[in-house]
């Protein structure tokens, strides 16, 4: 459904911009922008915008490493960005073309430097946490009033999962987020690169595996909103979007998001320009457009993710800036952890373990 909407927007933008010669091609996560911003960009700059979407860092990386993707702006998350910078996939930003850089928020940019030293190749678009979305009514029905909706034990304790299996549980199909979450749950270092420690995640997933309906990284938004599933491990803003869609549909489904109290992963989605971008000039214009305080606020107000733009905060609606699930308090921020990319040999161990967890072999 959302793809249909997006492609119709893309089509409309193609038609609207047919007269101008210049094109910027953007490849962003699905459900991740207020689409009216796309039109606004075209009107302001006269550049035709082609907007495509993906739902996994891995798919994006495959396209980046194949080369010749044809995109001018892409949005990898921190650890993936770091790998792709190493592979030589991105060009350094020309800061003279990005006057709006002054709007950025040091709290975020100091954290993204660990992936992109000096933030030389990327700007922060949004950031968030990986946590648990629940259909409150169904979960309480299955587990009682004091269901541990703010704890990883909700999804990693087989006793809970057995009762939740009937109403449907989705996990993200993203090993780089799920395995750190499992390690964190059993008290190991979530950022461990030691294969023996990583192997311990298997003991967390295997007992709950039979109760997981699907590993998928975008279906859960609709599935939660429609009441098809009652629990989803997912990204903060996606689950809040599901909450909103359920409210709009008025189907009695009440969704809540929690970054679990044991600790949750904090991630950063960064906009960067591929080394072989056909229109780097236009790409810089797009980045500068996005860093405009009002534009960035419009995007966050629409998708319920926090952004790395300090100046945008005065334009954010109370629902967003005032919601600790989106903008956590200082204390809650300290409870979040970040990860670094796996070296290739460890990556192999991680992906094999993930295949084993997903398929049972």
């Amino acid at each position, binding site marked *: 459904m959302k793809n249909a909407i997006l492609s119709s927007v893309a089509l409309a933008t193609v038609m609207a911009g047919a007269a101008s010669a210049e094109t910027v091609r953007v490849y962003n996560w699905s459900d991740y922008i207020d689409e009216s911003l796309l039109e606004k960009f075209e009107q302001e700059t006269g550049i035709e915008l082609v907007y495509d979407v993906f739902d996994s860092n891995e798919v994006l990386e495959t396209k980046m490493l194949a080369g010749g993707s044809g995109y001018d702006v892409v949005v990898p998350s921190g650890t993936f960005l770091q790998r792709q910078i190493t592979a030589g996939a991105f060009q350094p930003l020309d800061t003279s073309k990005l006057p709006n850089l002054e709007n950025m928020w040091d709290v975020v940019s100091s954290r993204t430097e660990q992936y992109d030293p000096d933030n030389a190749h990327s700007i922060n678009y949004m950031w968030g946490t990986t946590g648990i979305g629940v259909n409150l009514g169904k979960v309480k029905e299955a587990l009682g009033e004091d269901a541990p909706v703010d704890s990883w034990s909700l999804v990693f304790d087989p006793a809970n999962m057995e009762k939740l299996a009937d109403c449907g549980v989705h996990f993200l199909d993203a090993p780089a987020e799920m395995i750190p979450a499992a390690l964190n749950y059993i008290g190991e270092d979530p950022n461990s690169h030691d294969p023996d420690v990583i192997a311990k995640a298997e003991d967390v997933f295997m007992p709950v595996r039979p109760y997981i309906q*699907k590993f998928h990284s975008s279906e859960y938004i609709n599935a939660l909103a429609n009441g098809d599933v009652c629990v989803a491990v997912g990204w903060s803003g996606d689950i809040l979007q599901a909450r909103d869609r359920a409210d709009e549909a008025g189907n009695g489904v009440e969704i809540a998001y929690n970054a679990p109290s044991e600790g949750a992963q904090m991630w950063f989605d960064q906009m960067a320009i591929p080394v072989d971008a056909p229109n780097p000039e236009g790409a810089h214009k797009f980045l500068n457009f996005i860093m405009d305080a009002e534009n960035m606020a419009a995007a966050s107000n629409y998708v319920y993710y926090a952004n790395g733009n300090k100046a945008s905060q005065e334009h954010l609606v109370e629902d967003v800036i005032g919601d600790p699930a989106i903008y956590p308090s200082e204390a809650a921020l300290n409870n979040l952890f970040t990860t670094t990319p796996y070296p*290739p040999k460890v990556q192999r161990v991680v992906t094999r373990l993930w*295949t084993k967890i997903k398929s049972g072999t």
Partner: protein
Amino acid sequence: MRRFALIAVPYLWLLALFLVPFLIVFKISLSDTALAIPPYTPTIKDGISALIAELDFENFTFLASDDLYWKAYLSSLRIALISTILTLIVGYPIAYGMARAPEEWRATLMMLVILPFWTSFLIRVYAWMGILSNEGLLNQLLMWTGVVAEPLQILNTNTAVYIGIVYTYLPFMILPIYAALDRLDESLNEAAEDLGCSRMQAFWLVTIPLSRNGIVAGSFLVFIPALGEFVIPSLLGGSGTLMIGKVLWEEFFNNRDWPVASAVAVILLLILIIPIILFQRNQQKQAEAEQ
């Protein structure tokens, strides 16, 4: 000389569209992964001698050492085989009905079989997701009629994969069987009945054997693509659905390991060559018989 040119055309076609891509995939399957663009090493840029020196069969020994891949190949074979049989069971009566229908209806019936192809395959599979989900049309109907009290879990299971494959490939089964049955001489059945066969016996002893070529052709047309199917298991299947097309996709996109993904593809092709050769031979025999 002219004859040579005539033969050369199909061979050039085969060379350009099959052999060259295969050799590229085969070459990548002998490489190692690298964090670079493209993500494997060595590449042509390293020079021919370095290229040859660094290639090895490591990825194939890796596939053999990990039981995941054999289980996936076997599971794909099983799913492809069962879906082929199911498609035959559903498709044969439809083809039979079409062939026995009055002459003036046949074009319309044929049209109805082909009509779904006018919609994108992906959209049709998405439609099945809407039909089969817990809150979907099928479950709502079953609960409304009181057949079941709780919604049946169909989506994200192997059952949904079978439904998807049978639905998608049904026309490939119906059309060759219909072609065989259409040509069948009605008087042969009458002769069989005159000679003492019941209608049922005449069907089994005359109609089925004479439509054998259509059954074989239809079965291969379903089995071969179903074996490497990726879209249906990934959209309709669950975490327990193990199919080699999905494993290949995951090697390529999730693990970003092009060499291992290529090795999986090379072996899949080797497995497919047997049914493809059998299919070719069947087609050839049929052509000869008609001459």
